[in-house]
């Protein structure tokens, strides 16, 4: 079969010693920067680009790809251990992963994250092999109306990220939307809420918000509560997941992989959207949704698989059509062009060794990463036993370095601190930051797609309902919303009846 020949070709390329070495190097660097909060794969790839000038193109691409999916592995580590997302796509892992760590189950959380990521990586590689060109064409059918409806669906799903009061979750989403407004409007060029500060012209950086709300706020709040000290120094029970853990998570892994593979292909998709969607899905279909946020392993397994699958499938549109779906892919595209390769359908035909070598390297890289990460879990977990008076300042320092490394801007640091304080207040008020983050991301995107859809339709609002894909998604959102509200309504009625 053609596929086997191609895979074989890929293997002959990847198994050359220097390609293997660069793959490992990229994966390790990727994991490291994934663990470090703030600095992400995009900046690292840009910084390491000059190093790739002296090696053959395949090797360069293998290394850069390794950095990207490696960072998805590393991001989960800090999310689980200290509630600081190392990568933006690991934000969701903080929710249940950190809860598990507080219960002394950091080891199983990390292990499941690694294993789920590996599974997703393998499956995604196969998907790329089989379906690359067809999927890319399919993604082109998504116009702005479809994207808008998908975001609406996502926003409704955001309410499911909420553990407590629905009202508070909605309030958080709205707050996130408002924060997302800051910046320059794409459609009119007007600067909103920038107050003349030039760093705000492009909006508040996502990393700044997340660092403050999740990382710094958690530290401040931990210092507030005496009992948190004990939990951090609790002896970790075991490193290997139990049978029950595996049983609970394998389905979540499969679902996460499927979701991530689909969402990664869409422009604007990728790892971030996939992980959020997976979490919402898991919570929705769980038999006992109240476990989520308190250490439900599905909340770690699903999103972690989704973000790895999303990261890898986001290569498809870039490799087959030359359209990058997110910032990192745009960089990879630039790297390919520097090496004289123009991505597009011709790459598969003209340079099959490069194409298939890159794809197979993703599988090999995933394998290397899981072999690397599993034994390291013991070391990571021991980090938790460091006395908090050393650990917390170190974490704060890493956060600050990470935030500063984004734009070399002190204003970013000040904003992160501000968000830290805000996050602490929110925790005190029992409001959760996760819906805020989702509102922050989805809000501006929704507005952009909404207005663009209207420009295309020349002001005709029915376009959202006449396009089939868009209509389907809006209906699903409506149904989900009803399903969410209905039990609350019924419960209220029961309460009234009891009286």
């Amino acid at each position, binding site marked *: 079969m053609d596929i086997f020949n191609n895979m074989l070709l890929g293997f002959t390329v990847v198994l050359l010693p220097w390609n293997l070495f660069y793959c490992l190097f990229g994966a390790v660097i990727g994991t490291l920067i994934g663990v470090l909060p703030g600095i992400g794969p*995009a*900046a690292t*790839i*840009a*910084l390491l*680009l*000059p190093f790739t*000038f002296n090696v053959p193109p395949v090797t360069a691409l293998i290394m850069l790809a390794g950095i990207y999916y490696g960072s998805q592995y590393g991001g989960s580590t800090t999310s689980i251990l200290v509630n600081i997302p190392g990568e933006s796509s690991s934000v969701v892992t903080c929710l249940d992963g950190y809860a598990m760590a507080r219960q002394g189950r950091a080891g199983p959380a990390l292990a499941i994250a690694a294993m789920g990521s590996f599974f997703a990586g393998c499956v995604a590689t196969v998907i790329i092999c089989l379906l690359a060109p067809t999927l890319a064409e399919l*993604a*082109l*059918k998504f*116009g*702005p109306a479809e994207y808008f409806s998908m975001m609406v669906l996502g926003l409704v799903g955001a309410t499911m990220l909420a553990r407590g009061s629905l009202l508070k979750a909605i309030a958080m989403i709205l707050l996130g939307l408002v924060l997302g407004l800051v910046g*320059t409007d*794409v*459609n*009119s*060029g*007007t*600067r909103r809420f920038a107050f003349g500060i*030039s*760093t705000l*012209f*492009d909006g508040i950086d996502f990393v700044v918000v997340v660092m403050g709300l999740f990382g710094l706020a958690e530290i401040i709040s931990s210092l507030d509560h005496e009992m948190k000290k004990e939990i951090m120094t609790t002896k970790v029970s075991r490193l290997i997941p139990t049978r029950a853990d595996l049983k609970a998570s394998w389905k979540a892994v499969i679902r996460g992989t499927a979701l991530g593979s689909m969402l990664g292909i869409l*422009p*604007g998709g990728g790892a971030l959207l996939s992980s959020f969607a997976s979490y919402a899905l898991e919570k929705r279909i769980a038999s006992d949704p109240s476990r989520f946020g308190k250490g439900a392993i599905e909340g770690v397994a699903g999103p972690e698989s989704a973000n790895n699958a999303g990261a890898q499938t986001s290569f498809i*549109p870039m490799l087959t*059509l*030359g*359209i*990058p*779906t997110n*910032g990192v892919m*745009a*960089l990879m595209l*630039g790297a390919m*062009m*520097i*090496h*004289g390769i*123009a*991505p*597009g*359908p*011709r790459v598969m035909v003209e340079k099959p060794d490069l194409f298939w070598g890159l794809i197979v390297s993703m599988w090999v890289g995933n394998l290397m990463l899981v072999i690397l990460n599993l034994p390291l879990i013991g070391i990571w977990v021991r980090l938790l036993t460091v006395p908090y008076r050393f650990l917390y300042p170190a974490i704060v320092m890493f956060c600050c370095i990470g935030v500063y490394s984004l*734009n*070399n801007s002190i204003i970013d640091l000040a904003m992160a601190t501000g968000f830290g304080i805000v996050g602490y207040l929110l925790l005190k008020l029992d409001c959760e930051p996760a819906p805020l983050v989702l509102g922050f991301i989805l809000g501006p995107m929704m507005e*952009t797609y909404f207005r*663009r859809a209207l*420009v*295309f339709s*020349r002001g005709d609002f029915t376009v959202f309902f006449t396009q089939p894909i868009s209509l389907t998604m809006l209906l699903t959102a409506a149904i989900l919303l009803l399903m969410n509200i209905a039990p609350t309504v019924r419960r209220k009625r029961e309460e009234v009846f009891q009286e």
Partner: protein
Amino acid sequence: MNKKWTLSFMSLALVAAVFGLYPDSAPAQTFPTKPITFIVPFPPGTGNDVIARIIGDKLSKSLGKPVVIDNKAGAAGAIGGEAAAKAPPDSHSIIIASTTLSINMSVSKVNYDLVKDFAPVILLGTMPYSLLVPMSVPAKSIKELVELARSKPGQFNFGSNGIGGAPHLLAEMLKLVGKIDIVHVPYKGTNEVVADLLAGRVQLLFAPLVTGRPLVQDGKLRALGVCGNKRSPALPDVPTMAEAGYPTLDIPNWYAILAPAATPKAIVNTLNAEVAKIMAMGDVKERLTNQGVDPRSSTPEEAAAYIKQDVTTWAKVIKDSGVQMK
């Protein structure tokens, strides 16, 4: 007493030695005396940044001191431009600039002036834009496209990578010159709009030639014209804007290295000589060409004249089209 004397003497000797090793910087003879800051007003990985890193890498080898890339991104280059204009007059800062900074001066309020605040060092190259249409639009030349658009007023969409960017302004010029009614659909960045162009939701787009080239060669898009004073060797059948009958659109994107205005002439000339040598290197030329840039070289005076002309040209385009960022 003895110990004290020995210690004081030794410390004095040490201080003298340290000062002796670092003489006061005498500019022209011993330039550079410390690492050079190379300001890039855009995020890492973008066109400007990649070019700056290629050149900075070679420059540090030839000058013997590290060339440190400083990404100061934001506000479409305005933040970096301002930082460079206000850079300390110690002759050790340079900035890479491109058309975006020139356009910005006329389209919004910025705190730098490309003509007054800088002493251009050298022109690095130009990057042409191309006019792309999807296969679903049956026009095979710009004239045909204009006629088609005139027959369907208000139905054609043109994309851009953002308001006030070169693709937007070039399309506005086409609108004025061709007297057509086309609707602007702004995007954030070129990649999203190319996806919609391929799908036929957007009917025309001015995009860097290098972005469209592979898709044109694969037959997924058609290139109707190239903005630049010569045809592109990669797409020899595509006429230039002037050949197609629209000479006012022949404005390519340019890249240049500038130094703050206070930099002494001698240093500007030294930098010019070094970078010119780098631009002549085969591998540098190849890498730039792969990025879509036509490498060239120039004297500082030529660069200054070119940039001044460019600022004036775009100012007129912006005035005629009425585009402004608030």
